């Protein structure tokens, strides 16, 4: 009798009565939340979506003001566009690689230091942030150029007889940009390494794993989400870099942002430059999607297996 009453009262035939009410309630709540979000969404729409849409719109008009794909066709007609595009990705790839090689050990060291010492060391990581990119780039020029510090020391010490080409070429761009990008990798990586539960490491050791095996099998996989976000930030920021390649590349390493500036002043229609922006944006979004798919899935896999 009790069960029959419950059936009558609670779920009707098969639970639909209550479910409808619950769904309606959930809908009301999500509407409420959306209403709360709307100022933010409106802001995003006006300052991001509309300008980007406008950029895309502009890129569809040629110099005569006619609707055309000329701005995009140019990328295939003039070989230099594709080449600078490839250069851009090559630079981003090498800089990201260099940042990982330098940044991972650094972040690892920082994460193992006592908190007080680590926070002092972190200041030195963040300090360059407060110096202008231009100043830092010129400083690298002074250090790396033919008669710069490194070459004159090495020649004075008799290590080399001919100066090394470190500035005004690809190597110079990678060195200069790595210095600027390093904090963007170290900070998220350090933050994620700090959250790794040391009990997991201890447990591994307790079960007989060597320190190297503990690092390889436990610490490294757990640090991957932080590494992934650092890599994505560095890579994407590299794609739009201007100052350092312009000064350190000696005009021989032309990146996409520099090409954008040249194209904008060369053509009388904004569309010519806008098209470059649209392509970079599209490729960057595609890459972010790819990263999310590859690294994100792997990273979440690591987390859930924990």
């Amino acid at each position, binding site marked *: 009798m009790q069960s029959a009453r419950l059936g009558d009262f609670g779920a009707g035939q098969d639970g639909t009565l209550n479910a409808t009410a619950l769904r309606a309630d959930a809908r009301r709540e999500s509407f409420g939340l959306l209403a709360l979000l709307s100022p933010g969404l409106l802001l995003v729409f006006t300052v991001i979506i509309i300008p980007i849409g406008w950029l895309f719109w502009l890129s569809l008009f040629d110099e005569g003001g006619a609707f055309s794909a000329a701005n995009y066709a*140019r990328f295939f007609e003039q070989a230099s566009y594709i080449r600078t595009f490839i250069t851009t990705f090559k630079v981003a790839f090498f800089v990201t690689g260099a940042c990982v090689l330098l940044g991972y050990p650094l972040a690892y060291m920082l994460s193992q230091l006592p908190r007080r010492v680590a926070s002092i060391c972190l200041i030195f990581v963040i300090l360059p942030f407060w110096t202008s990119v231009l100043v830092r780039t010129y400083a690298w020029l002074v250090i790396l150029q033919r*008669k710069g510090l490194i070459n004159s020391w090495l020649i004075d010490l008799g290590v080399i007889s001919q100066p090394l080409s470190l500035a005004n070429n690809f190597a110079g761009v990678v060195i200069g940009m790595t210095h600027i990008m390093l904090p963007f990798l170290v900070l998220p990586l350090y933050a994620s390494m700090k959250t790794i539960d040391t009990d997991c490491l201890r447990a591994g050791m307790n079960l007989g794993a060597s320190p190297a095996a503990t690092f390889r099998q436990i610490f490294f996989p757990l640090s991957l989400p932080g590494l992934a976000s650092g890599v994505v930030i560095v890579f994407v920021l590299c794609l739009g870099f201007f*100052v350092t390649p312009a000064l350190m590349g000696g005009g021989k390493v032309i990146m996409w942002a520099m090409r954008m500036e040249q194209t904008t002043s*060369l053509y009388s229609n904004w569309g010519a430059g806008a098209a470059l922006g649209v392509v970079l944006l599209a490729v960057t979004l595609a890459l972010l999607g790819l990263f999310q798919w590859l690294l994100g899935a792997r990273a979440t896999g690591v987390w859930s297996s924990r």
Partner: protein
Amino acid sequence: MTRISCIHSLALAGLLASTAVPALAADTITVASWGGTYQEAQTKAFFKPTADALGITIKEDTTNGLDDVRLQVTGNAVKWDITELGADECARGSKEGLFEKLDYSVIDKSGINPKLVHDDWVGISYTSVVLIYRTDVFGDKGPKTWADFWNVDKFPGRRALSGAQATETLSVAALAEGIPIDKVYPVDIDGALKSVDKIRGHVDAWWTSGAQAMQLVKDGEVDMASIWNGRAGTLKKEGAPVSFSFDQGVLTADCMVIPKGSKNKDIAMKALAKFVSPDLQANLPLYVDNGPANEKAFETGKIPPERIKDINSSPENVKKQVLQDPEFWRDTLVEATEKFNNLVQQ
């Protein structure tokens, strides 16, 4: 990035200006130029004397070139009454209809090369692209001509050329092929590109700004370079071991325009007339190495004779140089620059 952020801030400024009520007093005009020591010299040579003579206030601003004017005119937010540009930019902007017509009943054009006098733009000064070399490397036996610069066997060493100004590099490339100075224009672009192709493997830096060219030479990063004469003169004054001459220089003009939609067109016209007058033109070389566009300036007696020989646009020096033709580049710049980029950016 500086340039791009400038454009952004200009866009913003333009936006603000367009919403503000035009409250500028009619006797105030705004003049934009390239900034730096050049504009400081212009302030002393042109702007201050003009403001005093006409009883007006001249406000100053700096420009990045034609894109800035285009942004203001097409965005209906013109904040400059006069702006300086490179002559080929003036020719291109004129074709795009970005400038007000000039009134030559107000502006006296006599003494200015007719190639630099147009319906809506007029020449204001000259810069030369010259060959500079380091004397600590070559002594006084350095490369003197562009053919020498191209001769990598006889003059080994590191080289820099302008990468951002295809017009200048193609002009010197034509000279390097042995084309006489009066035959360089109209430039045989494909021939000049072939000439660039010969040297590009030996070019260690393609500079994109005057400051960069100067730094490359000053720090010994390169042993020889193409450079603007103002920058070359500064290096020499600073005591850098360098030598340059106006032989086979490429004389490029700067011009001034009144952007279309200027609110103080009439006063701007009167001010511009003052700027190009022989009297004020003669002031310019007293402060900076850029020569006056009005050759009557040399007849005013204001410029000391020993100074005249150092000025790129003095009648003596003009004979040694190629005058870059702005109207030639108006029609060929885009194609030539793309081809040049294809060659250089690889």
